[in-house]
């Protein structure tokens, strides 16, 4: 019926479902990566839902998640630095996939919105979402402290 909501359901089942499976078991690094990916995937879901319900006001949720999601991951990266330093998580593939999905969703919703103030807000969300999650996954991979990463 509604393509946007259908897309949201697909991302929710495959993406968020997979991160839920990832966070529920396995070593700490897998769980931390899954937590980061979960916020990176839930943000596009919220954008798709806002578009699907025809309510631009719901975009505020995606904005707050794009701001605070990476902050949450940084909390884990900072306070679990010692535990994660032993075997740092490297998940380049999933991270870039999630970033690409986020960028694609922001692009699609931006095209549907058209120019205006809402478009500026969307682009801010897109930059925060993609940049934040790349930085956060880098911080998880040992880039939190000087001299440890790279």
């Amino acid at each position, binding site marked *: 019926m509604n393509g946007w909501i259908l897309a949201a359901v697909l991302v929710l089942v495959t993406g968020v479902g997979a991160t839920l499976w990832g966070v*529920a078991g396995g070593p*700490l690094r897998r769980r931390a990566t*899954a937590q980061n990916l979960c916020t990176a995937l839930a943000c596009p879901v919220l954008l798709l*839902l806002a578009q699907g319900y025809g309510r631009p006001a719901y975009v505020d949720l995606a904005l707050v998640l794009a701001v605070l999601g990476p902050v949450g991951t940084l909390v*884990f990266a900072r306070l679990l630095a010692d535990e994660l330093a032993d075997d740092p998580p490297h998940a380049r593939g999933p991270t870039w996939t999630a970033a690409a999905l986020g960028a694609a969703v922001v692009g699609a919703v931006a095209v549907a919105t058209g120019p205006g103030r809402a478009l500026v807000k969307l682009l801010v969300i897109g930059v925060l979402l993609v940049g934040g999650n790349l930085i956060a996954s880098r911080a998880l991979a040992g880039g939190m402290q000087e001299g440890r990463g790279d």
Partner: protein
Amino acid sequence: MTETVIVVALLLVAVAATAAVAVRDPVRQSLVLAVLGVVLAVLFTVLQAPDVGLSQLAVGSALTPLLLLLTVRKAKRRGRRAERGRSAGGDGP
């Protein structure tokens, strides 16, 4: 379609909550709780309650994990010290 998305979100919440209880280590549990917070926010959005979703996002994504991890850090430091004191007392210095 709207019913499908509600059912999917509900099932995700049920699974995430079960996982949050089943994971016994508080550090790992705080990771699951962060994910549970995000999934709950999605559920509240599909139940047409964006205000509550916003609340849940603000609290669940960064604040609750930070509080839990700081407590774990303090308690662990304490616990290790107590253990060390106990074992030192047992062995005799």
